[in-house]
């Protein structure tokens, strides 16, 4: 008998559950679960870092999903287990790990077949992407998690792995998950592209306009030539949408690989309309293959 009342402790988990088609059996989500929009109608159980245990228990869940490595605290998972609840915590540090977790969540949630199919599709897309990018030199990028202070992402996270699959190479080499960087070092490295992730493109544009004037930032060639890629914030979440975000990034970094018409491209419209900035980048990219 598959679980009938599932509680999600992370936005990525919520997304995954909806993508697996089990949304009717989702009993509770966090305050930050905003995708898909239907998730906003579900009961709230507090934040991801400090959920409200009473509300979780009151929902009488038979399965609780947590995103252990990058979001939920181990104290939370441990406490829920001691209260007698069944908890599954994912801990993906690579994109493949995310796919495997998705498959496993499908199994546990009683949507094993759907899960298998979904993951197979996603793997196919990644495979095709890999083909397209075959032989192309990876772009050297700086993924900007936050600009003030300057925080990027380490290589041994699923995000770092996602960058790699999108045909990028992070200029950041560190074991830390969210390394704080010195702007000087970044200027010395001169990444080809700056990558920002956001749900709202306009706010990124505004930020860029400000940063352009600042010392350090204005010395970045990627900044002055507006080689900036903006992807949806799905790249932050270890959920199925991650693959779309990877594709979106790849298009901006290697537009040349996507110029011919491709029937196997996903028929759904792209997640976010490409901005003029991305279009400019594409033009620049078209003219200069490194």
């Amino acid at each position, binding site marked *: 008998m598959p679980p009938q009342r599932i509680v999600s402790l992370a936005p990525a988990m919520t997304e995954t559950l909806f993508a697996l088609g089990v949304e009717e059996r989702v009993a509770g989500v966090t*305050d930050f679960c905003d995708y898909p929009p239907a998730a906003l109608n579900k009961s*709230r*159980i*507090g*934040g*991801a*870092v*400090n959920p*409200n*245990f*009473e*509300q979780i*228990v*009151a929902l*009488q869940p038979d399965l609780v999903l947590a995103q252990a490595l*990058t*979001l*939920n*605290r*181990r*104290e*939370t998972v*441990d*406490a829920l287990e*001691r*209260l*007698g609840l069944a908890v599954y915590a994912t801990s993906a540090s690579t994109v493949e790990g995310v796919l495997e977790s998705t498959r496993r969540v499908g199994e546990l949630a009683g949507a094993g077949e759907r899960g298998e199919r979904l993951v197979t599709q996603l793997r196919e897309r990644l495979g095709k992407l890999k083909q397209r990018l075959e032989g192309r030199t990876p772009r050297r990028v700086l993924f900007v998690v936050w600009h003030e202070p300057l925080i990027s992402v380490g290589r041994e996270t699923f995000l770092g792995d996602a960058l790699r699959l999108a045909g990028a190479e992070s200029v950041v080499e560190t074991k*830390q*998950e*969210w390394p*704080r960087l010195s702007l000087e070092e970044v200027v010395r490295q001169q990444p080809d592209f700056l990558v920002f992730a956001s749900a709202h493109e306009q706010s990124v544009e505004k930020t860029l306009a400000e940063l352009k004037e600042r010392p350090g930032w204005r010395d970045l060639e990627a900044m002055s030539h507006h080689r900036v890629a903006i992807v949806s914030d799905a790249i932050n979440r270890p959920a199925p949408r991650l693959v779309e975000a990877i594709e979106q990034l790849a298009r901006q970094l290697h537009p040349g690989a996507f110029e011919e018409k491709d029937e196997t491209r996903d028929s759904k419209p792209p997640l976010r309309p490409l901005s003029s900035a991305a279009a400019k980048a594409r033009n620049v990219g078209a003219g200069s293959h490194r």
Partner: protein
Amino acid sequence: MRRLTFRRVLWVCTLQAVVLMAAVVVALKLGAVPISVTDLVFSLGRVAIGHDSELPSQFQVIVFGLRLPRIILAIFVGAALSVAGAGFQALLRNPLADPYVLGVSSGAALGAILSLIFAPEIPLVTPAAAFAGAALTIAAVYFLGRREGQLDGSTLLLGGIVMASFLSAVIMFLMTTLPGREQRGMSFWLMGDLSTPLPEEIGWVFAVGLAVGIGAIYSTAADLNLMLGGENEAVHLGVNAKRVKLVVYVAASVLTGLAVSVSGAIGYVGLLVPHALRWLVGSDYRILIPASALGGAIAVVLADTLARTIAAPTELPVGAMTAMAGAPVFIYLLRRSMR
């Protein structure tokens, strides 16, 4: 001459215990999930006569698995911090001393952070590491605080303050290296937070430590009354000042370490509860110690209940409640003492 008798102490403590019971019932009733008082009373009754299997399981989990342990922890933390505060105020002969002034909470915070950085997956590690950090700090400040072979009030204060600022700097540095989710968890911890349920073993360890610590300080209560008038005077009146200082220092620090290890640094309780009780029952430590313990328990239970209900379903850290209530009271006390 109205004297302090054992009967009076008993009377005051019984009164406070009744208030505490009332606070506990209120705290059990209130929460994100509403529970009626009648349900509560009946269920407590059923548990008392051993029929707890008749209760709906979700009710049982919420009341006995979540709220009651949390309330018990609040009681322990409140009692520990208040008695420690009263002890430090006598030891340092300073009415503005609080349990954190000698750096114990910073040591515990450092222990907690280190345990998160080297993150083994054992859940008991964080409180244990925090207590270890506290213990090391206690030892270090002890050696810093000695003069001519025994603890000296002003030297101790200086040593403690220096240690606290040094540790804070290290903590701030380490915070920047923490992964994101731990950072948020750590901020809750630094503010004082009881929202994460802890394993039962911790409760037992705390209970034992609490009893021993309060007992040790209480055994010096009559001596402390005299120490307040100056150490030389106390020695001439038969107080073994060297021993008393050591006992109070260790006991009060251990109580603080225990409290901070499980709940983070909840502020103002150790400072203000002894003051409030002094105003109500007098400065005699033979009544002040038990009264502070019970008074502190009441204060933290109420503050924690507010923390979980005032912005439900969001939980505020309990340290925010005590700070918001405590700061104005503190200012008032300060102004009164200046008149």
